[in-house]
Structure formats: structure tokens, C-alpha cells
């Protein structure tokens, strides 16, 4: 380590830039935000480059005791590094996406986004239980303001729903945390990850954490805040919500639920599988009948996140690695799809699918990129979605063939609603003159979407770059949870042995 508190700088930079934004005019605020997020992207890449997959589990460790039972303890493992990378990658794109479409109260908007970034990075970097909670919950405030101030017509309702749903889930987790600290006498997350809580307590602790992460992820049936929040949020808000905030739930499962309560997790695998199975089928069907583009993508997010939970709770290597890749892939693809929606929304100010059609004629570049992200979303080989869905399906198959059968129907349904959406928007006849007159992507929009497309292909063709940092951490996690891993009806005789290996 070179002695620089890299993580503190990473978290502090957007925070300071955000405060600065409040004191300047609109244009200056835009530039400050762009420069700060780009600087954080550079720092994040530097972190990724310096991170040694073969090295210690926790790297870039910082520890400053604040007293009173909380410490400014930061440190990252491979799982956190790739998620930090995702966040810092999406942030400049969000700022760019808001460059012209946000005209109202720009300095405050940029400040809220930068604050959001620092809190999200804090969640991934925190090594102290309460510090994690503070970052995790603190993120509600900027998002509440982003939806509530810069959102659509129903923004107030959506912002309340978002805030109160998430808060309710989180306070149950807080209670569980208090119990954990009273039992284990430490708030240090790596220590808690190795602590064996009493088996009967684990069930309750698991449920309390599930309440929080299930809302955040979101899982059926507590997903209802998500479509509202997505539809009402401004484009960049949706991108960050789908791209990073939903990942906090999955990260929580990997960081807390699985390693800290392996027995509790094992106990509730059937519950998680059933909820995920319902989510995959039900929300896919719901997505199929949506008339609003953003709502459709929002429901597809719920279905994709159900794949993540399938993979995670299969508790084998393929499942967990697949879930991680899927989270990254979904962060990129659905973030990009929200941008794609934003592009036409900026031009026509409607998200109704029926108002568009035949855009491939007048917006060929748009149609091309839209196709790329649609394919990533349905999991076409060569795109990031394929790697994630494939791995997590294999993992699920090893745990339970029936669960895998249900999960894979989601892939088919996913292809159905995404391709139909694409068809209705880009192909067919041009029904509306104003839609037919829209200009193709501007240079700025190319700059926003092309990097994501490149990342999608990178992850699809050479996923090793993203698997390598997390491999050792998944291995450590498996050591802890292997005994609890589910093997319900592993259909093929070799499957069990394969999963063990």
C-alpha cells in the first residue's frame, strides 16, 4: 500500500464536490460534478488495478476508532472492488445524462447526485457494522430528494413510498445488528463474518436482514415501490437506482446474510427460492403487458434480481459468481436501457410505447445501441447477460432442478417482453409524425451509451477480468457456507459431486 487513504479519498471527493456545487451557478455545478465523478472513475480504476486478487482478503484497509462503538473502518475485498467500479463507472454517465434534461435547480441536483455517490461507495467500503448502516440508510435522503424534486407528476407519492418502504426494512436490520453487537461484542464486519451465532438466533437474524435486503433488491412481494420510483425518477435517477442501489441488496446478502448466518440461510433457502420463482414468472408476465417503457424495464429488473437471489442461495461457486456477474451486467444493461428510454423521452416527453414505432428508420444509431442492450438484457451469448444468467442457472440446477426449471422460464419470458418492446419501438410502421421526425443520437448521447456497450461486450467475451478479483472471496465464502448448501433434488447423478467440487 502506498500509504494514501485511497478509499477515504474516493468517498470524500464527491462529498466535497457536492458541497461546492451548492455555492455556484448551474453551469459551474455541472462541470464540477462531471470533473469530480470522472476523477472518482480514475481513482476507482486505479483501485481496481492495484487490487491484488491473490493478496490478502481485505485490502486498502483503514481504521480510525471514533469511540462509542463505531469506527471509520474501510477496506475492500474483490466483491466490493467490482461493485465500486460499477458505481464510479455509471456516475459520470448519470451526470452526462442530466446535462441538458435537468434545467431546474441544477446545483442542488448535482449535489444530491454527488452525495449519493459518496454514500454508495461508503456502503461497499465500510468494514464497521454501524458505519455500513449509516451509509446504507443515508443513501435514502439524496434519492428521496432526487425523486421528489426532479421527478414526474406522481413524484411525491413515489418518493414517500421509496423512503418508507426502505426505512421499514432497514430498521428491522438495525435491531438485528444491535443483537449481533451485544452477542459478538464487535462491530468489525470481517470479525462478524467469522463469528458463529447460535443456530436458533440465526433464523431471526436472517429474517431481519432479509427484510432489509429484500426491499432493497427488491424481491417479490415487496417490490411494489420500485416501478413507482423508476417511473417518477428523472432518467439519471433511474439509472443509479437500477444500476447501483438495487445491487446494495445483493451485496448485503453476500456480505452479511450468507457468511454471518449460514444456518439461517440454509433454513430459509426454500423461502427465497419460492419468492424468487414467483418473481421471475410473475414480474415477467407483468412486464409483458406494460404500456410504459420505464415500467416495463422496472419490472424486468425485479425478474433479473430474482435470478441473482437464485444464484446466491444455490450457495455454490457457479451460483454466486453468476449472481455477481449478473448484478454487474444488470447494472450496465438496465442502466443503459433507462438511458435509452431517456433519449426518446427528452425528444417526445412521453414513455408510452404505442407512441413510438419504426425508429430504426430515422434513428439507426439509436436502434443499434438499443439492440445491444436488449440483447444484454435477454442474455444473448457474447453479452454480459449471458455469462451471468448461464452461471447462475447452472448453480441453481445443482441445488434444485425444479428451481432451475422455473428460473429458466424467466429467460424465455425475458426474451419475449424485451424483444417485443424492441420490435414495437424500433421496427414496424412509423405511426406518429413527431416520432418519425426525431433526430438520431447526438454526440453527447453517443458518449454516454458507447462506453456501456463496450463494457457489456467486454464482460460477455472476457468475463475473467471481473471473475478474477472475486474468485478468492467466493472461495472463502464457500468454505463458510458449504455445509449449509442446499441439495434438494439434484437430478443428474454427477451434479452433486460437481457442485461439491
Amino acid at each position, binding site marked *: 500500500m502506498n500509504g494514501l487513504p485511497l478509499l477515504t479519498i474516493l468517498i470524500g471527493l464527491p462529498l466535497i464536490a457536492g458541497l461546492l456545487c451548492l455555492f455556484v451557478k448551474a453551469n459551474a455545478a455541472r462541470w464540477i460534478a462531471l470533473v469530480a465523478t470522472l476523477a472518482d472513475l480514475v481513482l476507482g480504476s486505479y483501485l481496481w488495478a492495484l487490487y491484488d486478487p491473490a493478496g490478502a482478503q481485505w485490502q486498502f484497509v483503514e481504521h480510525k476508532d471514533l*469511540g462509542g462503538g463505531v469506527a471509520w473502518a474501510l477496506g475492500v475485498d474483490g466483491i466490493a472492488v467490482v461493485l465500486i467500479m460499477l458505481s464510479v463507472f455509471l456516475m459520470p454517465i448519470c451526470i452526462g445524462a442530466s446535462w441538458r434534461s435537468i434545467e431546474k435547480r441544477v446545483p*442542488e441536483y448535482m449535489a444530491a447526485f454527488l452525495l449519493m455517490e459518496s454514500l454508495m461507495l461508503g456502503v461497499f467500503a465500510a468494514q464497521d457494522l454501524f458505519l455500513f448502516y449509516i451509509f446504507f440508510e443515508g443513501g435514502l435522503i439524496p434519492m428521496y430528494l432526487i425523486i421528489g*424534486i426532479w421527478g414526474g407528476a406522481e413524484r411525491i407519492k413515489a418518493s414517500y413510498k421509496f423512503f418508507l418502504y426502505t426505512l421499514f426494512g432497514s430498521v428491522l436490520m438495525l*435491531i438485528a445488528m444491535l443483537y449481533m453487537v451485544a452477542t459478538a461484542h464487535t462491530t468489525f464486519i470481517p470479525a462478524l463474518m467469522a463469528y458463529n451465532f447460535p443456530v436458533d438466533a440465526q433464523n431471526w437474524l436472517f429474517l431481519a436482514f432479509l427484510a432489509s435486503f429484500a426491499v432493497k433488491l427488491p424481491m417479490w412481494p415487496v417490490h411494489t415501490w420500485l416501478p413507482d420510483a423508476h417511473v417518477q425518477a428523472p432518467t439519471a435517477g433511474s439509472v443509479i437506482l437500477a444500476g447501483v442501489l438495487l445491487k446494495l441488496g445483493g451485496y448485503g446478502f453476500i456480505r452479511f446474510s450468507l457468511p454471518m448466518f449460514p444456518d439461517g440461510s440454509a433454513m430459509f433457502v426454500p423461502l427465497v427460492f419460492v419468492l424468487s420463482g414467483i418473481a421471475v414468472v410473475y414480474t415477467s408476465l407483468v412486464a409483458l403487458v406494460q404500456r410504459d417503457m420505464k415500467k416495463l424495464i422496472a419490472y424486468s429488473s425485479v425478474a433479473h434480481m430474482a435470478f441473482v437471489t437464485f444464484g446466491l442461495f444455490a450457495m455454490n461457486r457457479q451460483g454466486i459468481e453468476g449472481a455477481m456477474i449478473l448484478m454487474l451486467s444488470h447494472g450496465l444493461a438496465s442502466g443503459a436501457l433507462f438511458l435509452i428510454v431517456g433519449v426518446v423521452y427528452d425528444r417526445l416527453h412521453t414513455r408510452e410505447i404505442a407512441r413510438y414505432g419504426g425508429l430504426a428508420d430515422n434513428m439507426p444509431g439509436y436502434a443499434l445501441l438499443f439492440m445491444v442492450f436488449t440483447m444484454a438484457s435477454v442474455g444473448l451469448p457474447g453479452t454480459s447477460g449471458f455469462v451471468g444468467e448461464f452461471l447462475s442457472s447452472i448453480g441453481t440446477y445443482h441445488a434444485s432442478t425444479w428451481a432451475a426449471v422455473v428460473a429458466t422460464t424467466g429467460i424465455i419470458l425475458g426474451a419475449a417482453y424485451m424483444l417485443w418492446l424492441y420490435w414495437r419501438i424500433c421496427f414496424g410502421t412509423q405511426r406518429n409524425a413527431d416520432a418519425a421526425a426525431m433526430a438520431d443520437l447526438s454526440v453527447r448521447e453517443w458518449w454516454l451509451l458507447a462506453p456501456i456497450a463496450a463494457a457489456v461486450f467486454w464482460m460477455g467475451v472476457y468475463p475473467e477480468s471481473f471473475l478474477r478479483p472475486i474468485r478468492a472471496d467466493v472461495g472463502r465464502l464457500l468454505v463458510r457456507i458449504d455445509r449449509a448448501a442446499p441439495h434438494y433434488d439434484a437430478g443428474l447423478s454427477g451434479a452433486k459431486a460437481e457442485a461439491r467440487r
Partner: protein
Amino acid sequence: MIRFAPILPELILSIGGTILMMVAAFAGRRGSGLTSWLAVALLLIATLALIGAPSHAGPVFEGLIAADLFASFGKAIMFPAAAVAIIAAHGWFERETEHSSEYAVLILFSAVGMSVMVSATSLISLYVGLELQSLAAYVLASYRRSDERSAEAGLKYFVLGALASGILLYGISLLYGFTGTTNFTGIASAFARGTPSLGLLFGLVFLLAGLAFKISAVPFHMWTPDVYEGAPTPVTAFFASAPKVAAVLLATRVCLDALAPATDAWRQIVIFAALASIFLGAIAAYGQTNIKRLLAYSSINNVGFVLIGVAGAGVAGASSVLFYMAVYVPMTLGAFLCVLWMRDADGAPLENIESLSGLSQTRPAFAAAFAVFMFSLAGIPPFFGFWAKLVVFTAAVRAGLLPFAVAGIIGTVVGAYYYLKIVKIMYMDEPAAPYGRVRQPVQGGLILLSALAVSPLGYLLIGALQTLTDKAAESIF
């Protein structure tokens, strides 16, 4: 020989207060500015005098009061809070040409009462302190005699307060009758002798009921919204801060010291009052349109949380109570100072929540400070109010009260709604008529200071504050 060192702060305040009353009488209306600044200076000197005070002097004056660190900690919060209440009145009463010097003097006498309350280790000194504080408070509530609401608030406060004092006194007489002593230590040993008799239990219940009135815990909270609304805003700010600290600390000492052996008996009462306060405070605030009434319910709600800490009992419980109050006071004072700044273009005070509409666009700094206090009172991290709640819940969980902690923490979600509503009105609604400027740089500085104290910067103080509250909590055992 009687040693006066342990009561130095009280001496400073009572002698200084008496002299100031003379000054006020001779200087008349012209002297109001002078007396109020002198009163602020007296309170600050009394706070400084605490530094030299012995950390564990034990009971003095035949066991009437204890000048221990617990009491000193309480005074160190209350005296500055009282000083802020005096500063808050600047520019407020002048409008009605009513600001006479008695305001500051009454606050000083109330402060003496409060400091007797937090030091009391005997039922007699408890009662005397409480009444001294309350009498001054009754007058303060009706300070704007010409205003009907203020007069009504004062009368209501007085009548209900007298009733509560009666209940309290009845409890005291029962306890005295059945134990033969008014001393906390003596009462504790009486309770420790086997199962407490019915008379003792009655005494305990009446004593707690009287105290519940003073801290405005449900079901003895009814006076709070009316008095908070009717009293002049600087007085409301005072009621919500310093006297609340005094009464909460007094209740803590009574429960954890005098009634310690009967913990099982009082704990159920305290837990009921706590949960009822949390939920009633949260739910009743929904429909409020007057910001002062809303903050009154907010204070009921907050008392519920601090009572969870009291129920936690032991050193951890007492420490969590002190911690909570230390964070609660800046939040509340800050919020009320903001209310104080809600004036229309002519400078007339506004209390309607709707008048806050779109404040973030007309007065961004003001709105930001108010939002910080709201989020902090709601206990949303990263603001410091969150940590205060965390500390009381930790104490409750450690004491094995997990189910009650769960219920209480769910109450925070219920309560979050109306705090969010204020933020929503300020940030998401269209701007209403802009407020008039208030030219009070000292008050502005105080708002900034308290906003900084409850902002995430507060976490830098956690270590020091926790050590101090732990030490202070140990001093009562």
C-alpha cells in the same frame, strides 16, 4: 461548617437572579437588553463553575442533594439551553413592546429549580426543585398576557401542573409513610427488604405519574400541544429543551436510584409510557398544520425514545439517557429557532406549516438547516439523531428488552412520515410568499452551530461524549 462549593452554580444563579430582578425593577423597560445579556452571562458563568465541581461529591446537606457528575452533566446541557432561550427572545417581544426584563429573570429562577431537580436525592428537594421550576414556567407560558392563546396556555399549564404536583405529592407522602424516610437511599433499602407492600407500590405509581406529566409522556401528555402552541415561541423552545432535560434526568435518578430494587415494578410502567409516547407522538402529529403543535408531538415522541433508555436501567441505561438528551437539546433548540424565524414580510410570526412551502428556493440555507433538524429528529442516518436513538436501543437490547426495542424502532418509521412531510413541503412544493428577513446574527449563529452539531460531524464527538456519559451514569450508583 457548611460547604457551599457543591452548590456554587445554584448560588450564582439565585443571587445573580435576585440582583437582576432589582436591576430590572429600577431600569424599567430600557434595561431589558442589558438584563438579558447579563442573564446569559450568569448562565455561562454557572456552566463554567461546573468544571471545578467535584466529580463525585456524594450527598450533601444531609442527603438532600448530590453534586455528582450526573447532575453536572445535566446542568451543562440545561444552562446553555436556558441561555439560548433568552437569546431566542431577542427581537421577539419588542414587536409587542412587551419585552420586559422579567423574562430573563424568570428563566434564571427556573434554571435554579432545574438544577435542584437534577441533583435531588431526596423527595423533599425533588419536590421543591420541581415546583420552583414549574412556577417560573407557568408565568412564562402566559407571558404575553394580552394574547388569549398565551393566557390560556398558562392557565392550562398551571391547572394541570398543579394536579400533577398533587399526584406527585400524594405519591411522596405514601412513600414517606411506608418507608419513614424521604431519602433516596433509604427508600431503596426499604424496597430491597422483601416484596414491597401495596402502599409502597401505590406510592411508586403516583410518583411516576407525577413525573410523567412533567416529561409529557403518554398518558399525561395532553397539556403539551396546547401549551407549546399557545406559549410565545421562545418560551416553547425553552420548555422543549431545558426543563425536559431536568425532568427526564430526575425521573432517571428516581427510577435507577431510589426505585432500583423495584425495577420489575416500574419497568412495565415506563415501557408502556415509552411505547405509547412513541406511537401516539408519531400518529397524532400526522394531521397537524401548526408547526409548534407538530413539534410538541415530536417532543412527546422523543420522550418515548428516551424512556426506552430509562427502561434499559443500569449504568448503560442511564448513560444512554444522558447521551440522548445531549443530542436532543441541540436538535430541538435548532428546530425552534427555525420556527422563530418564520416571519412574514412585516415580521409577524407565522406558525402555519404551509408557509414553509418551497422554502428551499427562497431561503436555501434556512431550509437546509430545518431539514437537518427534521431528519435528525426522525433518527435518519447519517444525522446524529440516529446515533442517539441507536444508543438507547442498544441499552434496551443489552437489558434483554428486545421485543420492546423492536416495537420502538418500528415507531421510528411511523414517525419518519411527518418529518419527511416538512422536508417535502420545503423542498418539493411551489414557493409560498417569502419570509421576511430576521436580523439576528447571534440566533443565526446558534442555528448554524446546532445544525453542525447534529450533522454527521457530530460523530467526531462520539468517543468523548460516550466516555463522559458513562462516567456521569456511574456516579449515581
